[in-house]
C-alpha cells in the first residue's frame, strides 16, 4: 500500500516534463535516490514486522491479561493416583479392634494379606465460573467405583465465607480431610478406624469462615445426612448429623508453623449393626448386634511443622497428634435367624452407654532430600460401658471383642522415598496390639504415584 502511494507520488513528480534537460536529469536522479532510500526503509520495516510475528508465535501463551489464571494448567484439572501394596499380616479371622464397635463405615479394606491393589483415585476439578468450583474424587477398585467426594464450593462469597455442598470429607480433626495418598503412613491411625472406619464424609453442607486477623482463625459448621458410621441412614427430612470445628494457626519465626483445632460431631444411629457371638447352648452363632441411639465425638488436633528458614526441601519435621472422646447412649438389641439362638427374631438388651477415648501422636522427619522416616504411636481406651450385664450376657457371649477391657496399642515405624512430589515408595513396620489377644507384627510395602495435574495439598 505504502509502496503504491510512493510510486504515485514519484510519477506525479516525474510528469511535468516541460522543464529543461539538465533540470530534468537532476530531478530524475533525486527521485531515483528517494525511491531507493524509501524502498530500503520499507524493506527493513517489513523485516522487523515479520520477525516480530515470528517471535510472538514462538511465545504464544501471552494473552497479556494478568488476570487470567493458569493456576492449574489444564481445565479441568485431572489427576489419577495409583496405589498398591504388599502386606505381611498374621491370619486373624475378623480383625476388629478390641473394646470398640466395629465401624462398618468407609474403608477400603486394607486388611488383605500379600500383594493387593489399593483403590485408585481419579480426581477431576475446575472452577465452574468465577463464583463456584467443583471437584469429584472417585475411588476405583475391582467392580466398584466409590464416590469419595463430589462437591461444589463457593469462590465469590467473600468476607472470609466459603460454602461447600455435596459430598465432602468433613473438616473435623486434622487427618479426616486428607485422602489416603496424602497420609504419612500406609494406614489410618487406630483412632480414625475406630471413629469412622477411615474417613467421615458428609452428604450435606459446610459453611466456613476465616477471621480477618493475622492469626489464622477458622470456624466451620456442617449439616449432613449422617449416613456414615457412627450414624446410620435413617430416612428423615431433618439432617442426620451436625459438626462444628474451629482451627487456629500461625508461624513462629521463619522456621516454625503450627495449627490446632477442636471439633465436635453429633449424629444418631438406628439399628447400627455389628457381629457378635451368642450364648446358644448348642454352640455359638454369629448374631447381629444392633445399636440405636446418639453418638457424639469430640476431637482435638495439633500439628507443628519445622523447616530450616521455612524451606522444607532439604530437611523438615512434622509433629502431629489428635485426641478424641466419643460418648454414645442408646439401646442395644440382637437379632438372629437361628432357631436355638436367644436372639431369634430380635431381642432388646436394654440401655447401652459408652465413653471411649484415645488418640495418636506421630513424628515424620525428612533428613535428606527424598528420604523421610516416621514413628507413630496409637492408643485407645475402651473406657466405661454401662449396660445391664444380666440381660446382655444372657444373650451375648462376654468373650466378644466388644466387651474386652484390653487397651489397644500400636507402634509404627515408616521410611519412605520420593523421587519428587509425584512418586513415593514406602516401607512400614507395625507392632499392632489392637485386636483381642493378638499381637501382630506387620510389614507393609507401598507405592503411591500421581499422574496429571499438580495437586495442591493443604497444610
Amino acid at each position, binding site marked *: 500500500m505504502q509502496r503504491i502511494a510512493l510510486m504515485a507520488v514519484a510519477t506525479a513528480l516525474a510528469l511535468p516534463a516541460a522543464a529543461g534537460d539538465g533540470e530534468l536529469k537532476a530531478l530524475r536522479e533525486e527521485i531515483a535516490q528517494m525511491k531507493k532510500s524509501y524502498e530500503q526503509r520499507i524493506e527493513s520495516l517489513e523485516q522487523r514486522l515479520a520477525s516480530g510475528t515470528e517471535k510472538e508465535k514462538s511465545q504464544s501463551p*501471552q494473552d*497479556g491479561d*494478568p*488476570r487470567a489464571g493458569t*493456576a492449574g494448567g489444564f481445565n479441568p484439572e485431572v489427576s489419577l493416583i495409583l496405589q498398591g501394596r504388599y502386606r505381611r499380616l498374621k491370619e486373624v479371622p475378623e480383625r476388629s479392634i478390641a473394646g470398640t464397635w466395629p465401624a462398618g463405615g468407609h474403608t477400603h479394606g486394607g486388611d488383605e494379606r500379600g500383594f493387593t491393589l489399593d483403590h485408585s483415585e481419579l480426581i477431576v476439578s475446575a472452577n465452574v465460573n*468465577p463464583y463456584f468450583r467443583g471437584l469429584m474424587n472417585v475411588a476405583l477398585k475391582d467392580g466398584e467405583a466409590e464416590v469419595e467426594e463430589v462437591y461444589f464450593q463457593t469462590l465469590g462469597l467473600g468476607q*472470609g465465607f466459603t460454602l461447600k455442598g455435596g459430598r465432602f470429607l468433613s473438616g473435623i480433626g486434622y487427618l479426616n480431610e486428607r485422602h489416603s495418598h496424602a497420609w504419612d503412613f500406609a494406614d489410618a491411625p487406630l483412632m480414625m478406624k475406630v471413629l469412622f472406619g477411615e474417613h467421615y464424609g458428609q452428604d450435606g453442607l459446610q459453611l*466456613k469462615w476465616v477471621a480477618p486477623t493475622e492469626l489464622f482463625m477458622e470456624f466451620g459448621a456442617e449439616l449432613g445426612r449422617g449416613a456414615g458410621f457412627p450414624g446410620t441412614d435413617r430416612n428423615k427430612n431433618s439432617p442426620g448429623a451436625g459438626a462444628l470445628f474451629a482451627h487456629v494457626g500461625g508461624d513462629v519465626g521463619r522456621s516454625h508453623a503450627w495449627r490446632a483445632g477442636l471439633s465436635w460431631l453429633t449424629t444418631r444411629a438406628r439399628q447400627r449393626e455389628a457381629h457378635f457371638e451368642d450364648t446358644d447352648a448348642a454352640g455359638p452363632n454369629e448374631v447381629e448386634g444392633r445399636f440405636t441411639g446418639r453418638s457424639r465425638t469430640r476431637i482435638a488436633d495439633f500439628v507443628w511443622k519445622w523447616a530450616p528458614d521455612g*524451606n522444607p526441601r532439604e530437611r523438615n519435621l512434622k509433629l502431629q497428634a489428635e485426641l478424641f472422646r466419643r460418648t454414645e447412649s442408646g439401646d442395644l438389641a440382637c437379632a438372629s435367624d437361628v432357631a436355638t439362638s436367644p436372639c431369634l427374631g430380635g431381642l432388646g438388651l436394654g440401655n447401652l452407654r459408652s465413653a471411649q477415648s484415645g488418640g495418636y501422636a506421630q513424628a515424620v522427619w525428612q533428613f535428606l532430600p527424598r528420604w523421610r522416616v516416621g514413628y507413630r504411636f496409637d492408643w485407645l481406651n475402651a473406657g466405661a460401658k454401662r449396660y445391664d450385664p444380666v440381660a446382655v450376657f444372657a444373650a451375648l457371649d462376654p468373650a466378644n471383642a466388644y466387651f474386652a477391657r484390653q487397651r489397644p496399642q500400636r507402634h509404627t515405624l515408616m521410611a519412605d522415598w520420593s523421587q519428587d512430589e509425584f512418586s513415593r515408595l514406602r516401607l512400614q513396620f507395625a507392632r499392632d496390639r489392637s485386636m483381642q489377644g493378638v499381637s501382630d507384627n506387620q510389614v507393609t510395602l507401598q507405592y503411591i504415584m500421581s499422574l496429571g495435574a499438580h495437586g*495442591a495439598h493443604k497444610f
Partner: protein
Amino acid sequence: MKRFILACLLAAALPVHAGLRVFACEPEWAALAKQLGGDKVDVYEATHALQDPHRIEARPSLIARARSAQLLVCTGAELEAGWLPTLLRESGNAAIQPGRPGFFEAAQLVSRLEIPARIDRGEGDVHASGNPHIQLDPRNLLAVAGPLAKRLGELDAANAGHYAERHQAFSDRMRAAIARWELEAAPLKGARVIAQHKSFGYLFHWLGLVEAGTLEPAPGIEPGSAHLAQLVAQAKAQQVRLILRTPYDSPRPGGWLSERTGIPLVTLPFTVGGSARAQDLFGLFDDTIARLKERTP
C-alpha cells in the same frame, strides 16, 4: 457484648496501617509493589529468598493474610501450582480469585522462554507455560510494572496519580540502570555456565550467557551422582566458567562439581533479599552482575 469483644479482637489483630493490602507471592513482586505504591500500599511478602517458590506450603499464616488481601501479585505460569490454589480456596476472599481485578499474574505480561513443545513428566516437572522465573531479566520487570501500576490505580482510584507518577520514576530509573548493567556485563557475553535448576534462564537470555547444563537431571528432580559424574567431563570439555545456584538450592551438588572441576560455585541472590546487597530490585541486579564478574576471569 459479643459485638464489643469481636470489635476489640479485630482492633487488636488488624494492622493499623490503612494502605491497599497487597499479598505478594514472591519477594520480587513485593519489592515492585513497594516501588510503585510507596506508603500507599501495605505489602505482605508471602515467601522469602531462602524458600523454594515451587515448594511452599499453604500455611495457616498465609491463608490468614490472603483472607484480607485486596490485591494478589504472583508470578503465575504454574510456579505456585502446589500451594496458591489451596490458599485462594481456603481464604474465602472473593476479591483475589482468578479473573477478578485483585488477581495479578506477572508471567502473563512477558515473553516466556523454554515453552515445552511436549508436556511429559518424563522430562521432569516442566511448566506448560514456560520457565516461570521471569524476574532476572529487568526488562520483564519494566513490562510488569506498567500494568501493575495501572491495576493499583484501578483498585485505589484516589491514588491513581500517585501510582502513575511512581511508575514513571521507577521506569526511568530502571531504563538507565539496564543500560548501565548491560555495559557492565558485556564481558560476560558468551560465557558458559552450569546452573542447579533452570532458575536463571532469563538472566542468561538477557546477558548472553550460555547454559551448558543443569545439576538437576530434569526440572524438579534432585541431582543424582550419575548425572553429576557425567557433568564433570562435560564441564571441562565445554570450558564452563561458573556453577550457579540460588540461596535455597542445596550447596552440596554444586560444591561437589566445583571441587572436581575447579570451576567456582557462585550463589546468586535470585530475588530480592537473596543477599545482603540485594535489598531492592536495583540491588538485586547490581549484586548479581558483580558476583558474576567477580568470579569470571
